[in-house]
């Protein structure tokens, strides 16, 4: 083991590639940030690691959070893809669920990722009860496949109606396609998602096919680049569900990487918080255009069953639930036609960015407000792109656009912008906490990304959160998440039968069989686990409903019985809606099995400050900061120099290269033994 002592996490974002290296033997951590290489992310990736690790042979495990899949979806840069489907149904992915992008205004459009001409039909049909109405003719399928390949399709998806109930026809068709398809990029819809609902299954499977050539070639280039440097360890990829998978699995199921990057951040936050003694947190990732929040309750991130990457691009695989609102540093403030202040969702992004960047935008943003109020150091911009920020331009923009029309001072106008932005963020936090039945007082906010730590104090006050926990390196959180993520695979199968008609024991055996099969996938990855956990769930509902509740199920040594299932449903339903509906039959829609290989916990002590100094020693300046309608003298501190146990009372500003932390008046910040900053309401 000694010759492969390094565990490396790499998160490739739009602007920066973050590398996190853990030297297990020495118990030391080194991080670096290099510019991402557009076009071929694998170059920046390899260079970033090389800055820290001389000999790649010393790397045991390399875990990667990637945005290659996400970007290909958002920018519509996947491969030309064909679909072979049931006669009469080639438009399923284009017709969606007959929705529209916005409730008001009828001006939305949608272009599916597969051209209509590349969606071919074959005579075949399975009915809802699983019976084969029309058997598939392999010859016809082969002919269609040849036509698609000849037309220039690189990948193909086979999707048949009711395949969830019986995939005989679909499997035979997939084999026929494989026999003539020039490469390995053949996706079977029911293999991706054997779940009822044709649009969601077709969309997920089609996007998988669409991503396969892009993600595969990226991972191949990456593997070659690493091999060229002598890497002989395991390459793992972070999935949207917060677990990792082998690179081989990622090549087969690239759609599972759709939210790989953000998931890694949530996983890191969970691990840091757990070590620090916090099991309930709300992560807050603030970027230029958006604010992403995610809830972690009892040490577990919340999973969503599906998400839309963009209108109509639905991916139905379990994903870390991330709620996004349009309130970032670049969000533009203005007045609507009735003179009411608005912040966002329109954003200046990072280019041209806030007024203070001096790159051409003249409408004030959230960052401009923070700058005018003294919360950001004009001479020390984050990100390193600019030398200094133009505070006068920011003042002028706020004065013209907000202060004069509302008859406020520039400071009060700037604070109003922040109050409204904070209120929107608070709304997002309420959405994931109070609306889901959680008491915010039991939760801590954990900001990561560049801008979040300026707003956490306000969020404590606004939503009544118990505290905030600012990790020592908020800027490299996602890369850290790669290192600590468990390996996880989720499987689903539609049942769609009344509980009264189900042989519960057989159902239990089927779920156990899925679990065992999935464990072999884990075993193949060649990664060491502390232990392997199985999570069993049923999607259940009352007869007549269409939305199910997730019902956690324990399968004991005696197997599963109907009474246990009914009891578990009652508990889950009461939890979700308050009242049970006696006398109405219960239905089991799907069974879900997750197998989780727990990787060894990282000792967060490696982040603890060494030779830290007292607060007074770290104080570098005093700055005038405007808050709660008045100017205050706020101490400015070098955050990374602070010793364990250092305590700072607000108002104060803590600076470090990747973020600025604002401790609001009335709040107190203390450095914990891992180097985290814990912010709590003061005694007053």
């Amino acid at each position, binding site marked *: 083991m000694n010759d492969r002592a390094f565990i490396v996490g790499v998160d490739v974002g739009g602007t920066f590639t973050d590398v996190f290296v853990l030297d297990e033997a020495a118990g030391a951590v080194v991080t670096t940030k290099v510019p991402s290489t557009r076009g071929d992310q694998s170059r920046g990736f390899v260079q970033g690691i090389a800055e820290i690790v001389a000999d790649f042979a010393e790397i045991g495990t390399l875990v990667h959070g990637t945005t290659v899949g996400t970007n290909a979806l958002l920018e519509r840069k996947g491969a030309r893809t064909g679909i072979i489907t049931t006669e009469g149904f080639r438009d399923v992915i284009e017709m969606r669920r007959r929705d529209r992008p916005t*409730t008001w205004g009828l001006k939305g459009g949608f272009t599916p990722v597969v051209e209509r001409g590349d969606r071919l039909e074959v005579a075949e049909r399975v009915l809802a009860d699983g019976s084969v109405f029309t058997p598939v003719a392999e010859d016809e399928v082969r002919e269609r496949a040849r036509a698609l390949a000849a037309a220039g399709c690189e990948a193909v998806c086979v999707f048949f109606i009711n395949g969830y109930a019986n995939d005989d026809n679909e499997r035979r068709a997939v084999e026929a396609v494989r026999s003539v398809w020039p490469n390995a990029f053949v996706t079977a819809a029911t293999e991706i998602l054997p779940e009822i609902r044709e649009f969601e299954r077709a969309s997920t499977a089609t996007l998988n096919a669409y991503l396969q050539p892009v993600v595969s070639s990226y991972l191949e280039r990456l593997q070659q680049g690493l091999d060229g440097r002598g890497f002989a360890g395991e390459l793992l990829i972070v999935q949207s569900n917060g677990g990792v998978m082998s690179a081989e699995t990622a090549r087969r199921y690239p759609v599972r990487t759709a939210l790989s990057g953000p998931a890694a951040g949530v996983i890191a936050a969970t691990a840091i918080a757990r070590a620090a003694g916090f099991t309930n947190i709300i992560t807050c990732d603030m970027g230029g255009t958006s604010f992403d929040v995610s809830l972690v309750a009892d040490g577990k991130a919340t999973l969503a069953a599906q998400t839309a990457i963009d209108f109509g691009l639905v991916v139905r695989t379990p994903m870390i639930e991330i709620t996004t609102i349009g309130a970032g540093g670049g969000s533009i403030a203005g007045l609507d036609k*009735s003179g009411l202040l608005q912040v966002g969702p329109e954003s200046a992004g990072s280019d041209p960015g806030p007024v203070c960047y001096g790159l051409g935008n003249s409408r004030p943003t959230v960052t401009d407000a923070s700058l005018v109020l003294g919360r950001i150091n004009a001479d020390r911009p984050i990100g390193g792109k600019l030398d200094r920020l133009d505070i006068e331009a920011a003042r002028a923009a706020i004065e013209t656009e907000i202060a004069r029309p509302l008859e406020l001072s520039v400071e009060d106008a700037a604070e109003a912008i922040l109050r*409204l932005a904070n209120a929107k963020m608070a709304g997002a936090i309420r959405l994931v906490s109070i609306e889901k039945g959680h008491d915010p007082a039991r939760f801590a906010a954990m900001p990561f990304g560049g801008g979040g730590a300026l707003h956490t104090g306000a969020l404590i006050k606004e939503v009544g959160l118990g505290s905030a926990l600012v990790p020592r390196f908020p800027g490299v959180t996602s890369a850290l998440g790669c290192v600590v993520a468990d390996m996880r695979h989720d499987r689903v199968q539609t049942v769609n039968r009344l509980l009264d008609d189900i042989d519960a024991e057989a159902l239990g055996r089927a779920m156990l069989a899925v679990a065992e099969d999935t464990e072999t996938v884990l075993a193949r990855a060649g990664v060491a686990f502390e232990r392997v956990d199985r999570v069993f769930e049923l999607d259940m509902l009352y007869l007549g409903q269409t939305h199910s509740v997730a019902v956690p199920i324990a399968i004991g040594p005696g197997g599963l019985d109907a009474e246990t299932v009914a009891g578990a449903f009652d508990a889950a339903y009461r939890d979700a809606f*308050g009242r049970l509906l006696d006398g109405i039959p219960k239905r089991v829609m799907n069974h879900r099995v997750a197998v989780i290989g727990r990787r060894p916990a990282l000792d967060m002590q490696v982040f603890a400050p060494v030779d830290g100094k007292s607060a007074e020693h770290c104080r570098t300046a005093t700055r005038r900061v405007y808050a709660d309608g008045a100017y205050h003298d706020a101490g400015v501190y070098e955050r990374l120099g602070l010793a364990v146990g250092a305590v700072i009372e607000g108002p104060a500003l803590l600076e470090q290269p990747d973020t600025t932390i604002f401790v609001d008046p009335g709040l107190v910040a203390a450095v914990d033994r891992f180097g985290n900053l814990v912010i709590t309401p003061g005694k007053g």
Partner: protein
Amino acid sequence: MSGTATVDAVTLAILKGRLEQIADEMDATLFRSAFNPIIAEAHDASHGIYDAATGETLVQGKSGLPIFVGVMAFAVQAVIEKARLRGGIHEGDVWIFNDPYDGGTHLSDFRLVKPVFRDGAVFCFLASVGHWHDVGGNVPGNYNPAATECFQEGMLIPPVKLYDRGAFRQDVVDILSANSRLPMSLYGDLNGQINALELGEKRMHALIDDYGAPTISAALAALKARAAEMMRAQIAELPAGTVSAEDFLDNDGIVDEPLKIALDLTIGDGRMVMDFSRSSPACAGPVNISRATTVAACYVALKHIFGDVPANAGVLEPVEFRIDPGSLLSVTAPKPVGGYTETILRLIDVVFQAIASIAPGPAMACAYGTINALSLAGHRENGQRWVMFSFFGGGHGAHGGGDGLNHGNAPISTATIPPLEILEAAYPVRFTQWALRPDSGGPGRHRGGLGAVYEIELLEKQADVFLFGERGRFAPRGVVGGGDAATNRFTYQQHDGEHRPQMVSKMVGIKLARGQRLRLETPGGGGYGPAFLRPVDEVARDVRRGFVSAEQAAVSYGVAFSANGTVDADATRQLRSREPAT
């Protein structure tokens, strides 16, 4: 509500978000716990916060059915009026009713109204409306195209107390249940609506605790004033004068004669007058609507065009309505109103057309303009009754920024369509086609979105078909010189071959036998701008995709193709030099 306190501009902006969040959360709770797919999947429901004295809409959820945004105020007003005659409003009361003449829309929509008390007085009302699966009447699912009185459409419940000072009245639920073909579904939906109101009350109290009652009251009043101000600002940007638009319904399901919806829209002095006096008188069949519904439909149309107009009664302050009490837009009991969706869609169409003629920028062409409510009902071999009920979609109108959306939902709704796999799993049917319909989008510089083709085969011995549609004779209109879309076309098989419904777009009790099929070909949306100005490469792409046939390309767009499928430039030049066909 006391108007003495004031609220500063920033707090107001924050409270606006908090109040909207309460309404949204009520919506979400009902969607998740409802029993029937019309609420759970199609979101045919809505929640909001209403004025304690006047019942006016103050805040409405963003995810509910758009048409309810305008109509719910009338429902709350009906309860206030009834309570005044029956001993007043008390803490713990919840009222329930579905009277469409008082509260708008149709009998399927059950409204629950709950007062929120603060310091011994009503602070505001919360209300919940949801479309129930079956409320009795002659036709399962309640879209009865042959109704001539509301009694044939379902039970009519006036405002009565579901909770009396906190005590649940099971006898009321017993009456409701006994009058429905699907009492279990009714019971589940009712519980979901109660859940939503209880949650809303809890959240409202928490908000009042945070900010104090006077501040919240002041904020609600200020939001209304600002909504009016915003609408005035929108009107001020329109040119003064009067424009007119007319459109037609195929028939009322009883008498096969067209019905006219006419709008004379006058802008001037910062006000908008919507005069519907030239519209047809009340009709025998169920496409009448109450005045409340008419006002609500106009609100929906305006909000689609001027997106930032808030969901608040203030918006209608600068708008004056002239609606003849004898017209089909202002009926009273017992005139049938079950097909209200068709009439309000046509109202929206005339508003779109009128606005497009004076403000092409924000305008859109007409969407497919019909709800296509299909009810297939029968008995299984074991005698069990089944009712498959769903709405079917069509295309959206084109607009200045691009083509219309293919296969969208109706402008009055945010309904999604149930997955066909769910329908096939629940009912004895097999879909043989579920596809986009070529040549259905209105031609134009920007093309209307495509409608759809749905073909359904019966797998049981026998079933009855009820289908309520429109746009069988009068196509969705294009605007700014754009062409009309394709009309709705229904066909069904019988032992002697294929048939089309007598009333074009409406079918009552047609019997299908095992193996016979029913086919819906739905309209697209209207086009925007002259079709001859559509770039040739965009027409060629439409032809390649099969959205437009070569024939339509030549006739409507003036683009000719040679035998090998490429654009024939010379022939195209020649075609486009002529007057376009319309």
